[in-house]
Protein backbone atom coordinates (compact mmCIF):
# COMPACT_ATOMS: atom_id res chain seq x y z
CA UNK A 1 0.00 0.00 0.00
CA UNK A 2 2.63 2.50 1.08
CA UNK A 3 4.77 1.59 -1.89
CA UNK A 4 1.85 2.37 -4.14
CA UNK A 5 1.22 5.68 -2.38
CA UNK A 6 4.87 6.54 -2.68
CA UNK A 7 4.79 5.76 -6.39
CA UNK A 8 1.70 7.90 -6.88
CA UNK A 9 3.30 10.78 -4.99
CA UNK A 10 6.46 10.39 -7.03
CA UNK A 11 4.49 10.51 -10.26
CA UNK A 12 2.56 13.55 -9.12
CA UNK A 13 5.79 15.31 -8.21
CA UNK A 14 7.31 14.42 -11.59
CA UNK A 15 4.19 15.70 -13.35
CA UNK A 16 4.41 18.98 -11.46
CA UNK A 17 8.10 19.41 -12.31
CA UNK A 18 7.36 18.63 -15.94
CA UNK A 19 4.57 21.22 -15.93
CA UNK A 20 6.81 23.90 -14.44
CA UNK A 21 9.57 23.16 -16.94
CA UNK A 22 7.19 23.25 -19.91
CA UNK A 23 4.91 26.05 -18.83
CA UNK A 24 7.31 28.40 -17.01
CA UNK A 25 8.50 30.20 -20.12
CA UNK A 26 5.01 29.94 -21.61
CA UNK A 27 3.71 31.71 -18.51
CA UNK A 28 6.29 34.40 -19.07
CA UNK A 29 5.04 34.90 -22.64
CA UNK A 30 1.48 35.11 -21.33
CA UNK A 31 2.41 37.56 -18.57
CA UNK A 32 4.30 39.76 -21.03
CA UNK A 33 1.36 39.74 -23.42
CA UNK A 34 -0.86 41.13 -20.66
CA UNK A 35 1.57 43.83 -19.52
CA UNK A 36 1.62 47.44 -20.53
CA UNK A 37 4.69 48.29 -22.61
CA UNK A 38 5.95 50.43 -19.75
CA UNK A 39 5.84 47.51 -17.26
CA UNK A 40 7.84 45.03 -19.29
CA UNK A 41 11.33 46.33 -18.59
CA UNK A 42 11.30 46.58 -14.82
CA UNK A 43 13.94 45.82 -12.24
CA UNK A 44 13.26 43.93 -10.03
CA UNK A 45 11.33 41.84 -12.48
CA UNK A 46 7.52 41.82 -12.43
CA UNK A 47 6.59 38.17 -11.90
CA UNK A 48 2.92 39.07 -12.13
CA UNK A 49 1.71 41.90 -14.39
CA UNK A 50 1.25 44.93 -12.08
CA UNK A 51 -1.77 45.88 -14.12
CA UNK A 52 -3.42 43.79 -16.76
CA UNK A 53 -4.16 45.12 -20.21
CA UNK A 54 -5.81 43.42 -23.15
CA UNK A 55 -4.65 46.06 -25.61
CA UNK A 56 -2.35 43.66 -27.46
CA UNK A 57 -5.04 41.05 -27.88
CA UNK A 58 -7.45 43.76 -28.97
CA UNK A 59 -5.02 44.73 -31.72
CA UNK A 60 -4.81 41.14 -32.91
CA UNK A 61 -8.47 40.17 -32.95
CA UNK A 62 -10.39 43.30 -31.87
CA UNK A 63 -11.37 43.98 -35.46
CA UNK A 64 -13.32 40.72 -35.47
CA UNK A 65 -15.61 42.09 -32.80
CA UNK A 66 -16.14 45.36 -34.57
CA UNK A 67 -13.62 47.31 -32.55
CA UNK A 68 -12.27 50.24 -34.48
CA UNK A 69 -8.59 49.72 -35.15
CA UNK A 70 -6.71 52.03 -37.42
CA UNK A 71 -3.61 49.83 -37.60
CA UNK A 72 -5.34 47.02 -39.47
CA UNK A 73 -3.00 44.52 -37.80
CA UNK A 74 -5.91 42.18 -37.11
CA UNK A 75 -6.52 41.56 -40.80
CA UNK A 76 -2.91 40.60 -41.38
CA UNK A 77 -2.93 38.52 -38.24
CA UNK A 78 -6.06 36.53 -39.04
CA UNK A 79 -4.93 36.00 -42.59
CA UNK A 80 -1.57 34.69 -41.40
CA UNK A 81 -3.34 32.46 -38.87
CA UNK A 82 -5.43 31.05 -41.72
CA UNK A 83 -2.31 30.54 -43.84
CA UNK A 84 -0.59 28.74 -40.98
CA UNK A 85 -3.58 26.43 -40.59
CA UNK A 86 -3.77 25.66 -44.30
CA UNK A 87 -0.04 25.06 -44.68
CA UNK A 88 0.42 22.99 -41.52
CA UNK A 89 -2.88 21.14 -41.97
CA UNK A 90 -2.25 20.38 -45.64
CA UNK A 91 1.30 19.24 -44.96
CA UNK A 92 0.13 17.04 -42.08
CA UNK A 93 -2.57 15.24 -44.00
CA UNK A 94 -0.41 14.73 -47.07
CA UNK A 95 2.72 13.71 -45.18
CA UNK A 96 0.95 11.27 -42.90
CA UNK A 97 -0.92 9.64 -45.78
CA UNK A 98 2.18 9.33 -47.94
CA UNK A 99 4.27 8.05 -45.04
CA UNK A 100 1.63 5.48 -44.13
CA UNK A 101 1.64 4.06 -47.64
CA UNK A 102 5.32 4.39 -48.50
CA UNK A 103 6.44 2.91 -45.17
CA UNK A 104 4.14 -0.05 -45.72
CA UNK A 105 5.73 -0.59 -49.10
CA UNK A 106 9.12 -0.39 -47.46
CA UNK A 107 8.24 -3.03 -44.87
CA UNK A 108 6.00 -5.51 -46.62
CA UNK A 109 6.46 -5.22 -50.36
CA UNK A 110 9.63 -6.62 -51.83
CA UNK A 111 10.83 -4.55 -54.73
CA UNK A 112 14.30 -3.91 -56.10
CA UNK A 113 16.24 -1.16 -54.32
CA UNK A 114 13.72 -1.05 -51.50
CA UNK A 115 16.16 -0.66 -48.64
CA UNK A 116 18.42 1.70 -50.51
CA UNK A 117 15.47 3.99 -51.23
CA UNK A 118 14.34 3.86 -47.62
CA UNK A 119 17.74 4.57 -46.13
CA UNK A 120 18.38 7.39 -48.55
CA UNK A 121 15.07 9.03 -47.70
CA UNK A 122 15.75 8.73 -43.99
CA UNK A 123 19.24 10.12 -44.51
CA UNK A 124 17.72 13.34 -45.88
CA UNK A 125 16.75 14.12 -42.28
CA UNK A 126 20.34 15.27 -41.96
CA UNK A 127 20.20 17.75 -44.84
CA UNK A 128 20.50 21.26 -43.39
CA UNK A 129 18.14 23.84 -44.83
CA UNK A 130 20.89 26.01 -46.28
CA UNK A 131 22.21 23.10 -48.31
CA UNK A 132 19.16 22.99 -50.54
CA UNK A 133 17.91 26.57 -50.26
CA UNK A 134 19.35 28.18 -53.39
CA UNK A 135 18.76 25.36 -55.92
CA UNK A 136 15.30 24.82 -54.48
CA UNK A 137 14.50 28.50 -54.81
CA UNK A 138 15.63 28.47 -58.44
CA UNK A 139 13.38 25.50 -59.14
CA UNK A 140 10.37 26.97 -57.35
CA UNK A 141 10.71 30.27 -59.21
CA UNK A 142 11.06 28.41 -62.49
CA UNK A 143 7.88 26.45 -61.81
CA UNK A 144 6.02 29.51 -60.54
CA UNK A 145 5.40 27.79 -57.21
CA UNK A 146 6.73 30.51 -54.92
CA UNK A 147 3.92 32.05 -52.89
CA UNK A 148 1.53 29.15 -53.56
CA UNK A 149 0.08 26.82 -50.95
CA UNK A 150 0.85 23.79 -53.10
CA UNK A 151 4.51 24.63 -53.58
CA UNK A 152 5.15 25.35 -49.92
CA UNK A 153 3.26 22.25 -48.79
CA UNK A 154 5.39 20.12 -51.14
CA UNK A 155 8.53 21.48 -49.50
CA UNK A 156 7.09 20.72 -46.07
CA UNK A 157 6.29 17.17 -47.17
CA UNK A 158 9.84 16.66 -48.37
CA UNK A 159 11.08 17.95 -45.02
CA UNK A 160 8.83 15.94 -42.69
CA UNK A 161 8.31 12.76 -44.69
CA UNK A 162 11.59 11.09 -43.67
CA UNK A 163 10.81 11.18 -39.94
CA UNK A 164 7.21 10.08 -40.43
CA UNK A 165 8.22 7.29 -42.77
CA UNK A 166 10.82 6.00 -40.38
CA UNK A 167 8.39 6.11 -37.50
CA UNK A 168 5.73 4.31 -39.52
CA UNK A 169 8.17 1.67 -40.68
CA UNK A 170 9.13 0.86 -37.12
CA UNK A 171 5.44 0.65 -36.20
CA UNK A 172 4.62 -1.69 -39.10
CA UNK A 173 7.61 -3.86 -38.25
CA UNK A 174 6.26 -4.37 -34.78
CA UNK A 175 2.88 -5.58 -36.08
CA UNK A 176 2.61 -9.36 -36.20
CA UNK A 177 2.52 -10.80 -39.71
CA UNK A 178 -0.15 -13.27 -38.60
CA UNK A 179 -2.88 -10.64 -38.87
CA UNK A 180 -2.10 -9.93 -42.50
CA UNK A 181 -1.69 -13.64 -43.15
CA UNK A 182 -5.21 -14.22 -41.91
CA UNK A 183 -6.55 -11.46 -44.14
CA UNK A 184 -4.85 -12.93 -47.21
CA UNK A 185 -6.27 -16.34 -46.44
CA UNK A 186 -9.68 -14.68 -46.38
CA UNK A 187 -8.93 -13.49 -49.89
CA UNK A 188 -8.21 -9.85 -49.10
CA UNK A 189 -5.89 -8.00 -51.48
CA UNK A 190 -2.75 -6.14 -50.55
CA UNK A 191 -4.26 -2.67 -50.73
CA UNK A 192 -7.38 -3.67 -48.82
CA UNK A 193 -5.29 -5.30 -46.11
CA UNK A 194 -3.03 -2.26 -45.88
CA UNK A 195 -5.81 0.30 -45.59
CA UNK A 196 -8.44 -1.63 -43.68
CA UNK A 197 -6.50 -3.94 -41.44
CA UNK A 198 -2.95 -2.74 -40.94
CA UNK A 199 -3.48 1.02 -40.76
CA UNK A 200 -6.11 0.94 -38.01
CA UNK A 201 -3.72 -1.13 -35.93
CA UNK A 202 -0.97 1.36 -36.61
CA UNK A 203 -3.17 4.27 -35.58
CA UNK A 204 -1.10 5.48 -32.60
CA UNK A 205 1.92 5.60 -34.86
CA UNK A 206 -0.01 7.52 -37.51
CA UNK A 207 -1.25 9.97 -34.89
CA UNK A 208 2.24 10.45 -33.54
CA UNK A 209 3.50 11.06 -37.08
CA UNK A 210 0.69 13.55 -37.66
CA UNK A 211 1.47 15.42 -34.44
CA UNK A 212 5.15 15.59 -35.30
CA UNK A 213 4.44 16.89 -38.78
CA UNK A 214 1.83 19.40 -37.66
CA UNK A 215 4.04 20.86 -34.99
CA UNK A 216 7.05 20.93 -37.28
CA UNK A 217 5.15 22.64 -40.07
CA UNK A 218 3.39 25.01 -37.65
CA UNK A 219 6.72 26.28 -36.35
CA UNK A 220 8.43 26.39 -39.75
CA UNK A 221 10.18 29.67 -40.29
CA UNK A 222 12.99 29.39 -42.80
CA UNK A 223 10.90 27.87 -45.60
CA UNK A 224 8.01 30.36 -45.56
CA UNK A 225 10.45 33.24 -45.03
CA UNK A 226 11.80 32.59 -48.50
CA UNK A 227 8.89 30.88 -50.23
CA UNK A 228 5.87 32.73 -48.80
CA UNK A 229 6.67 36.37 -49.51
CA UNK A 230 3.19 37.92 -49.60
CA UNK A 231 0.11 38.03 -47.42
CA UNK A 232 -1.41 35.37 -49.70
CA UNK A 233 0.62 32.60 -48.08
CA UNK A 234 2.63 34.20 -45.28
CA UNK A 235 2.15 32.24 -42.02
CA UNK A 236 2.24 33.52 -38.44
CA UNK A 237 5.88 32.61 -37.86
CA UNK A 238 6.94 35.05 -40.56
CA UNK A 239 4.37 37.74 -39.74
CA UNK A 240 5.07 37.95 -36.01
CA UNK A 241 8.67 39.18 -36.32
CA UNK A 242 7.33 42.13 -38.34
CA UNK A 243 5.92 43.51 -35.09
CA UNK A 244 9.52 44.32 -34.27
CA UNK A 245 10.54 47.26 -36.41
CA UNK A 246 13.96 48.83 -36.60
CA UNK A 247 12.95 51.48 -34.09
CA UNK A 248 10.44 49.82 -31.83
CA UNK A 249 10.01 46.23 -30.70
CA UNK A 250 6.42 45.62 -29.63
CA UNK A 251 7.10 42.89 -27.06
CA UNK A 252 3.53 42.81 -25.79
CA UNK A 253 2.07 42.35 -29.25
CA UNK A 254 4.63 39.72 -30.24
CA UNK A 255 3.97 37.69 -27.11
CA UNK A 256 0.20 37.99 -27.49
CA UNK A 257 0.52 36.70 -31.05
CA UNK A 258 2.73 33.89 -29.77
CA UNK A 259 0.17 32.90 -27.16
CA UNK A 260 -2.48 32.76 -29.87
CA UNK A 261 -0.21 30.70 -32.05
CA UNK A 262 0.06 28.02 -29.36
CA UNK A 263 -3.68 27.38 -29.25
CA UNK A 264 -4.20 25.36 -32.46
CA UNK A 265 -1.35 22.90 -31.78
CA UNK A 266 -2.57 22.47 -28.20
CA UNK A 267 -6.08 21.73 -29.48
CA UNK A 268 -4.70 19.26 -32.01
CA UNK A 269 -2.91 17.34 -29.29
CA UNK A 270 -5.82 17.38 -26.87
CA UNK A 271 -8.08 16.09 -29.60
CA UNK A 272 -5.72 13.49 -31.03
CA UNK A 273 -4.68 12.22 -27.62
CA UNK A 274 -7.63 9.85 -27.65
CA UNK A 275 -6.29 8.04 -30.71
CA UNK A 276 -2.76 8.03 -29.43
CA UNK A 277 -4.11 6.25 -26.36
CA UNK A 278 -5.94 3.47 -28.16
CA UNK A 279 -3.60 0.72 -26.93
CA UNK A 280 -2.34 -0.92 -30.07
CA UNK A 281 -2.41 -4.50 -28.87
CA UNK A 282 -5.66 -4.22 -26.99
CA UNK A 283 -7.67 -6.37 -29.34
CA UNK A 284 -5.04 -8.44 -31.05
CA UNK A 285 -3.75 -10.52 -28.20
CA UNK A 286 -0.30 -11.25 -29.49
Amino acid at each position, binding site marked *: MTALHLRRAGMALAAILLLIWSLGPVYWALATSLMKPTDIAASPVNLVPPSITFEHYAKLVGGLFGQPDETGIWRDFLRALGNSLVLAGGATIATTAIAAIAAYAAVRLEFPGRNLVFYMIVATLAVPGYTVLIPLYRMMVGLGWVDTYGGIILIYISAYLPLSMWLMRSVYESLPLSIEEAAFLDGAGRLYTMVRIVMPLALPGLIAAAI*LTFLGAWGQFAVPLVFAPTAATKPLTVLIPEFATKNYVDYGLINAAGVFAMIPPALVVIFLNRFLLSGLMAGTGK
Partner: protein
Amino acid sequence: MSTPDAALAPPFAAEVPKPGLLQRVSSDAGLGIVLALPVVILMAAFVFVPVALTAWDSFHRVTPMLPGEPFVGFRNYTRMLSDPAVRNAWWNTWFYVAAAVSLELVLGLGAALLLNGMKHGRRWLLAAVILPWALPPVVNAMVWSWIYNPHYGLLNGLLMRFGLIGEARVWMNDQASALICVTLVHVWRMMPLNAVILLAALQTIPRELYEAAEVDGAGRLKTLRLVTLPLISGALGIALTQSTITAFNIFDEAWILAKASALTRPIQGQIYMTAFQDLKFSYGMAMSITVMLVSILVSSVYVLRIYRETRFD
Protein backbone atom coordinates in the same frame (compact mmCIF):
# COMPACT_ATOMS: atom_id res chain seq x y z
CA MET B 1 10.44 -3.34 -32.53
CA SER B 2 12.21 -5.83 -34.66
CA THR B 3 15.50 -5.69 -36.46
CA PRO B 4 16.43 -4.71 -39.99
CA ASP B 5 16.57 -8.40 -40.69
CA ALA B 6 12.82 -8.49 -40.36
CA ALA B 7 12.62 -5.92 -43.06
CA LEU B 8 14.96 -7.91 -45.21
CA ALA B 9 12.99 -11.10 -44.68
CA PRO B 10 10.85 -12.13 -47.60
CA PRO B 11 7.28 -10.96 -47.39
CA PHE B 12 4.52 -13.21 -46.23
CA ALA B 13 3.78 -14.64 -49.64
CA ALA B 14 7.22 -16.10 -49.99
CA GLU B 15 6.97 -17.92 -46.69
CA VAL B 16 3.95 -19.87 -47.81
CA PRO B 17 4.81 -21.30 -51.18
CA LYS B 18 1.77 -21.62 -53.33
CA PRO B 19 1.15 -22.08 -57.02
CA GLY B 20 0.75 -18.35 -57.49
CA LEU B 21 4.03 -17.54 -55.74
CA LEU B 22 5.82 -16.02 -58.68
CA GLN B 23 2.80 -14.02 -59.66
CA ARG B 24 2.29 -12.68 -56.18
CA VAL B 25 5.93 -11.72 -55.71
CA SER B 26 6.03 -9.83 -58.95
CA SER B 27 2.72 -8.13 -58.29
CA ASP B 28 4.04 -7.16 -54.85
CA ALA B 29 7.11 -5.70 -56.47
CA GLY B 30 4.93 -3.83 -58.95
CA LEU B 31 2.70 -2.48 -56.23
CA GLY B 32 5.73 -1.55 -54.15
CA ILE B 33 7.22 0.40 -57.02
CA VAL B 34 3.92 2.12 -57.75
CA LEU B 35 3.57 3.15 -54.10
CA ALA B 36 7.19 4.22 -53.70
CA LEU B 37 7.68 6.01 -56.99
CA PRO B 38 5.86 9.29 -56.19
CA VAL B 39 7.87 9.55 -52.97
CA VAL B 40 11.10 8.93 -54.81
CA ILE B 41 10.27 11.59 -57.40
CA LEU B 42 9.29 14.11 -54.72
CA MET B 43 12.41 13.54 -52.66
CA ALA B 44 14.60 13.62 -55.76
CA ALA B 45 13.20 16.93 -56.91
CA PHE B 46 13.13 18.64 -53.52
CA VAL B 47 16.17 17.17 -51.81
CA PHE B 48 18.51 14.94 -53.79
CA VAL B 49 18.91 17.09 -56.87
CA PRO B 50 19.30 20.33 -54.85
CA VAL B 51 21.89 18.65 -52.61
CA ALA B 52 23.76 17.42 -55.67
CA LEU B 53 23.72 20.90 -57.21
CA THR B 54 25.01 22.41 -53.99
CA ALA B 55 27.72 19.75 -53.73
CA TRP B 56 28.73 20.62 -57.29
CA ASP B 57 28.92 24.32 -56.33
CA SER B 58 31.08 23.46 -53.34
CA PHE B 59 33.84 22.31 -55.70
CA HIS B 60 33.80 25.65 -57.45
CA ARG B 61 34.49 29.16 -56.31
CA VAL B 62 31.02 30.68 -56.24
CA THR B 63 31.44 34.16 -54.80
CA PRO B 64 29.02 36.52 -56.51
CA MET B 65 31.35 39.46 -56.00
CA LEU B 66 34.14 37.79 -57.95
CA PRO B 67 33.81 37.08 -61.67
CA GLY B 68 33.48 33.53 -62.93
CA GLU B 69 32.93 30.27 -61.11
CA PRO B 70 36.20 28.36 -61.56
CA PHE B 71 36.63 24.78 -60.47
CA VAL B 72 38.70 24.64 -57.28
CA GLY B 73 38.60 20.96 -56.38
CA PHE B 74 38.64 20.34 -52.65
CA ARG B 75 40.00 23.78 -51.80
CA ASN B 76 36.79 24.89 -50.07
CA TYR B 77 37.04 21.77 -47.93
CA THR B 78 40.73 21.97 -47.08
CA ARG B 79 40.32 25.66 -46.27
CA MET B 80 37.99 24.73 -43.40
CA LEU B 81 40.75 22.79 -41.66
CA SER B 82 42.92 25.85 -41.22
CA ASP B 83 40.10 28.31 -40.50
CA PRO B 84 40.07 29.07 -36.75
CA ALA B 85 36.51 30.42 -36.89
CA VAL B 86 35.27 27.15 -38.37
CA ARG B 87 37.17 25.10 -35.82
CA ASN B 88 35.73 27.17 -32.98
CA ALA B 89 32.21 26.79 -34.38
CA TRP B 90 32.67 23.03 -34.55
CA TRP B 91 33.73 22.85 -30.91
CA ASN B 92 30.62 24.76 -29.88
CA THR B 93 28.50 22.50 -32.05
CA TRP B 94 29.96 19.35 -30.48
CA PHE B 95 29.08 20.73 -27.07
CA TYR B 96 25.51 21.40 -28.19
CA VAL B 97 25.17 17.93 -29.69
CA ALA B 98 26.49 16.11 -26.62
CA ALA B 99 24.52 18.18 -24.12
CA ALA B 100 21.28 18.49 -26.06
CA VAL B 101 21.08 14.86 -27.15
CA SER B 102 21.63 13.47 -23.67
CA LEU B 103 19.26 15.93 -21.99
CA GLU B 104 16.55 15.48 -24.60
CA LEU B 105 16.83 11.71 -24.36
CA VAL B 106 16.62 11.55 -20.58
CA LEU B 107 13.89 14.18 -20.26
CA GLY B 108 11.96 12.87 -23.25
CA LEU B 109 12.04 9.30 -21.97
CA GLY B 110 11.06 10.44 -18.48
CA ALA B 111 8.17 12.47 -19.82
CA ALA B 112 7.03 9.61 -22.07
CA LEU B 113 7.14 7.06 -19.21
CA LEU B 114 5.23 9.43 -16.96
CA LEU B 115 2.60 10.15 -19.61
CA ASN B 116 2.29 6.46 -20.42
CA GLY B 117 1.70 5.59 -16.78
CA MET B 118 -0.89 8.29 -16.16
CA LYS B 119 -4.52 7.37 -15.80
CA HIS B 120 -6.05 10.82 -15.41
CA GLY B 121 -5.30 14.10 -17.07
CA ARG B 122 -2.85 12.65 -19.54
CA ARG B 123 -4.18 14.65 -22.45
CA TRP B 124 -3.70 17.89 -20.52
CA LEU B 125 -0.18 17.07 -19.47
CA LEU B 126 0.63 16.02 -23.02
CA ALA B 127 -0.77 19.29 -24.36
CA ALA B 128 1.33 21.19 -21.81
CA VAL B 129 4.43 19.22 -22.76
CA ILE B 130 4.13 20.03 -26.45
CA LEU B 131 3.39 23.75 -25.92
CA PRO B 132 7.07 24.75 -26.00
CA TRP B 133 7.29 23.29 -29.46
CA ALA B 134 4.20 25.21 -30.58
CA LEU B 135 5.53 28.61 -29.58
CA PRO B 136 6.67 30.36 -32.78
CA PRO B 137 10.48 30.47 -32.89
CA VAL B 138 10.72 34.24 -32.75
CA VAL B 139 8.52 34.41 -29.67
CA ASN B 140 10.45 31.58 -28.10
CA ALA B 141 13.69 33.44 -28.65
CA MET B 142 12.26 36.67 -27.33
CA VAL B 143 10.88 35.03 -24.20
CA TRP B 144 14.21 33.41 -23.41
CA SER B 145 16.27 36.48 -24.09
CA TRP B 146 14.07 38.26 -21.54
CA ILE B 147 14.44 35.39 -19.12
CA TYR B 148 18.24 35.62 -19.42
CA ASN B 149 18.30 39.44 -19.50
CA PRO B 150 20.77 40.47 -16.81
CA HIS B 151 18.59 43.29 -15.47
CA TYR B 152 15.00 42.65 -16.31
CA GLY B 153 15.16 38.88 -16.60
CA LEU B 154 13.32 36.16 -14.75
CA LEU B 155 16.38 34.01 -14.11
CA ASN B 156 18.41 36.63 -12.26
CA GLY B 157 15.22 37.90 -10.64
CA LEU B 158 14.37 34.48 -9.19
CA LEU B 159 17.93 33.58 -8.21
CA MET B 160 18.33 36.90 -6.41
CA ARG B 161 14.96 36.68 -4.74
CA PHE B 162 15.92 33.33 -3.26
CA GLY B 163 19.35 34.65 -2.35
CA LEU B 164 21.20 32.16 -4.56
CA ILE B 165 23.26 34.89 -6.20
CA GLY B 166 24.22 38.25 -4.75
CA GLU B 167 24.24 40.34 -7.89
CA ALA B 168 22.90 40.07 -11.40
CA ARG B 169 24.93 37.83 -13.70
CA VAL B 170 25.52 38.46 -17.36
CA TRP B 171 24.99 34.91 -18.57
CA MET B 172 26.33 35.49 -22.06
CA ASN B 173 29.72 36.83 -20.91
CA ASP B 174 31.07 33.49 -19.84
CA GLN B 175 31.38 30.71 -22.37
CA ALA B 176 30.29 27.88 -20.08
CA SER B 177 27.11 29.58 -18.92
CA ALA B 178 26.41 30.96 -22.40
CA LEU B 179 26.66 27.50 -23.99
CA ILE B 180 24.42 26.02 -21.31
CA CYS B 181 21.85 28.80 -21.72
CA VAL B 182 21.68 28.22 -25.47
CA THR B 183 21.42 24.46 -24.99
CA LEU B 184 18.57 24.81 -22.49
CA VAL B 185 16.50 26.86 -24.93
CA HIS B 186 17.04 24.21 -27.58
CA VAL B 187 16.24 21.32 -25.23
CA TRP B 188 13.14 23.10 -23.98
CA ARG B 189 11.88 23.41 -27.52
CA MET B 190 12.87 20.01 -28.91
CA MET B 191 12.31 17.65 -25.98
CA PRO B 192 8.55 17.30 -26.75
CA LEU B 193 9.43 15.68 -30.06
CA ASN B 194 11.22 12.85 -28.26
CA ALA B 195 8.41 12.56 -25.73
CA VAL B 196 5.83 12.05 -28.51
CA ILE B 197 7.96 9.53 -30.43
CA LEU B 198 8.72 7.49 -27.30
CA LEU B 199 5.17 7.69 -25.99
CA ALA B 200 3.85 6.26 -29.24
CA ALA B 201 6.30 3.39 -28.93
CA LEU B 202 5.45 2.75 -25.27
CA GLN B 203 1.83 2.48 -26.30
CA THR B 204 2.64 -0.50 -28.47
CA ILE B 205 4.03 -2.58 -25.60
CA PRO B 206 1.42 -5.12 -24.52
CA ARG B 207 0.48 -4.75 -20.86
CA GLU B 208 0.86 -8.50 -20.37
CA LEU B 209 4.61 -8.20 -20.75
CA TYR B 210 4.79 -5.89 -17.74
CA GLU B 211 2.56 -8.19 -15.79
CA ALA B 212 4.82 -11.09 -16.66
CA ALA B 213 7.85 -9.15 -15.53
CA GLU B 214 6.14 -8.25 -12.30
CA VAL B 215 5.29 -11.90 -11.65
CA ASP B 216 8.95 -12.73 -12.18
CA GLY B 217 9.71 -10.25 -9.42
CA ALA B 218 11.64 -7.80 -11.55
CA GLY B 219 11.98 -4.30 -10.06
CA ARG B 220 10.97 -1.14 -11.88
CA LEU B 221 14.45 -0.37 -13.11
CA LYS B 222 15.05 -3.94 -14.17
CA THR B 223 11.77 -3.99 -16.06
CA LEU B 224 12.70 -0.76 -17.75
CA ARG B 225 16.07 -2.11 -18.79
CA LEU B 226 15.02 -5.62 -19.75
CA VAL B 227 11.50 -5.13 -21.08
CA THR B 228 10.74 -1.54 -21.95
CA LEU B 229 13.94 -0.25 -23.51
CA PRO B 230 14.53 -3.22 -25.84
CA LEU B 231 10.93 -3.04 -27.02
CA ILE B 232 11.13 0.65 -27.84
CA SER B 233 14.67 0.47 -29.22
CA GLY B 234 13.47 1.39 -32.70
CA ALA B 235 11.85 4.53 -31.38
CA LEU B 236 14.91 5.29 -29.27
CA GLY B 237 16.98 5.16 -32.44
CA ILE B 238 14.61 7.59 -34.13
CA ALA B 239 14.59 9.90 -31.11
CA LEU B 240 18.37 9.88 -30.79
CA THR B 241 18.83 10.50 -34.48
CA GLN B 242 16.43 13.40 -34.67
CA SER B 243 17.91 15.01 -31.54
CA THR B 244 21.39 14.65 -32.98
CA ILE B 245 20.43 16.15 -36.30
CA THR B 246 18.52 19.07 -34.81
CA ALA B 247 21.41 19.74 -32.44
CA PHE B 248 23.81 19.90 -35.41
CA ASN B 249 21.40 22.45 -36.84
CA ILE B 250 21.27 24.75 -33.79
CA PHE B 251 21.35 28.31 -35.03
CA ASP B 252 18.45 30.57 -34.03
CA GLU B 253 18.85 29.98 -30.31
CA ALA B 254 22.50 31.00 -30.32
CA TRP B 255 21.92 33.85 -32.74
CA ILE B 256 19.16 35.52 -30.82
CA LEU B 257 20.70 35.10 -27.37
CA ALA B 258 24.25 36.10 -28.22
CA LYS B 259 24.21 37.34 -31.83
CA ALA B 260 27.37 36.38 -33.68
CA SER B 261 29.44 35.89 -30.53
CA ALA B 262 32.22 33.35 -31.06
CA LEU B 263 31.57 32.02 -27.56
CA THR B 264 28.33 30.41 -28.70
CA ARG B 265 28.41 30.52 -32.50
CA PRO B 266 27.56 27.08 -33.89
CA ILE B 267 28.62 25.74 -37.26
CA GLN B 268 25.26 26.72 -38.79
CA GLY B 269 25.89 30.30 -37.66
CA GLN B 270 29.29 30.13 -39.32
CA ILE B 271 27.65 28.89 -42.52
CA TYR B 272 25.11 31.70 -42.44
CA MET B 273 27.82 34.32 -41.94
CA THR B 274 30.06 32.87 -44.63
CA ALA B 275 27.45 32.25 -47.31
CA PHE B 276 24.87 34.96 -46.67
CA GLN B 277 26.75 37.81 -44.97
CA ASP B 278 30.20 37.57 -46.48
CA LEU B 279 28.77 36.05 -49.70
CA LYS B 280 31.46 33.36 -49.92
CA PHE B 281 28.75 31.12 -51.11
CA SER B 282 30.54 27.94 -52.14
CA TYR B 283 32.75 28.00 -49.04
CA GLY B 284 29.63 28.13 -46.89
CA MET B 285 28.05 25.35 -48.92
CA ALA B 286 31.13 23.17 -48.46
CA MET B 287 30.64 23.61 -44.71
CA SER B 288 26.98 22.69 -44.93
CA ILE B 289 27.73 19.55 -46.94
CA THR B 290 30.27 18.62 -44.26
CA VAL B 291 27.72 19.13 -41.47
CA MET B 292 25.31 16.90 -43.34
CA LEU B 293 27.86 14.10 -43.75
CA VAL B 294 29.01 14.34 -40.14
CA SER B 295 25.48 14.23 -38.76
CA ILE B 296 24.63 11.21 -40.93
CA LEU B 297 27.78 9.50 -39.73
CA VAL B 298 27.14 10.19 -36.05
CA SER B 299 23.50 9.15 -36.27
CA SER B 300 24.23 5.92 -38.09
CA VAL B 301 26.64 4.97 -35.31
CA TYR B 302 23.75 4.98 -32.83
CA VAL B 303 21.25 3.40 -35.13
CA LEU B 304 23.51 0.48 -36.01
CA ARG B 305 24.52 0.08 -32.39
CA ILE B 306 20.93 0.01 -31.22
CA TYR B 307 19.94 -2.50 -33.85
CA ARG B 308 22.90 -4.71 -33.04
CA GLU B 309 22.24 -4.63 -29.30
CA THR B 310 18.61 -5.55 -29.67
CA ARG B 311 19.05 -8.16 -32.33
CA PHE B 312 19.03 -11.16 -30.03
CA ASP B 313 16.35 -10.04 -27.60
